């Protein structure tokens, strides 16, 4: 029973987090350009190994952000191993991040009172 409860809890949490994928990625890019797996790994590490952003979710988020001119991308020139695509946040992206962060802080305050 307890096991089931935890599973459901994790599922809901991940749904909640998914809605914030764009902002999470923008937040990570605030500190510098990053490539795909680096983002996945940082999400995992920064969440104390509790949240795994899957490839498909991350990739579709990156494409959406790129289409909305919030990030730009370029292929790196790795001398060894495969080439990687890097993402860089734009001014629009920084603004979007600040707005989303502000909205989240506001929502968080409200939820803290209500839940």
């Amino acid at each position, binding site marked *: 029973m307890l096991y089931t409860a935890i599973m459901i809890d994790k599922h809901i949490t991940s749904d909640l987090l998914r809605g914030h994928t764009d902002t999470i990625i923008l937040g990570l890019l605030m500190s510098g350009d990053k*490539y*795909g*797996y*680096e983002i*996945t*790994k940082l999400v995992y590490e920064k969440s104390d190994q509790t949240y*795994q952003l*899957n*490839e*498909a*979710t991350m*990739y*579709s988020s990156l*494409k*959406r952000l790129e*289409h*909305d001119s919030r990030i730009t991308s370029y292929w790196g020139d790795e001398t060894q191993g*495969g*080439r*990687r*695509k890097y993402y860089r946040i734009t001014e629009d992206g920084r603004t979007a991040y600040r707005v989303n962060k502000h909205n989240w802080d506001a929502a968080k305050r409200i939820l803290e009172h209500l839940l």
Partner: protein
Amino acid sequence: MEQKLHTFLEQAFAPYGNFPARAEVTKELLSNLQDKYTDLKRQGLSDDDAYRATVESFGDAAEIMEQLSPAQPVKAERPVQPAADGGTLRQIMKEAFRQAKHSSSRFASTDLRQTDLSDSDLAAADFSFSALQGATFDASDLTGAVFTAAALTGARFEEANLAGASFIASDVQEGRFANANLTDATFKASALKGANFTGAALRGTTFMESDLSGLSFDNQTLTGVTFERSSLKRTSFKNAKLMDVTFRHSDPKEAVFEGATMDKVTYAMLKNTKADLSGVTIA
């Protein structure tokens, strides 16, 4: 291993054929998966375990395809700006939908409560996850439109063409479908309490896992309609004509068929479910 991961991606995208960005997409995803695989190996996982963990965390290719569809989604998440007068807002919405339609785009997750979208060309539009309570779609072309998890309480679809449209997991209570064309339309896992289907064309229409209790199909002609795992408590088919209608796991025992006309097959099927068929004419 690169080959194995490459094969995995090929399979994941196989259902989508050769879409334009495919090479670019798989190239980048392959590099991500390889990075992950290498990292897991470095952490001491065996080849098999590392491969399994890598592909298991890939997720759903459909999510990527949704983002890559030829036209990018219009910015439907942006709230509708209040216009000075309703007429203007209506024009803006209509224009937005017209453009969205031409770019075969989707405008999911939109707040369109009480919006007037009558007489609009909205074929194949995607209204999933949208708030459409009380919206009006009268006489609009909604052929193949998709309403997944949409809030449509009291929405009006009178005279609308909903051929092939689908309402899945949506709240369509008090929905008004009078004289709408519901040919091959699907209602699945949706709330239809108080919905009105007077005069609607019901050909090949499917009602699945939906609560149809108390609804009236009186005096209507139902051809090739399927009721599957739906509640039909006190659903009324008085004086209706039922041709080739299927009732699967729907328990029509308490449905009302008084004065209805039906073909032999439909009659036999209903007879088996112990439905009350007194006053029914076999055509």
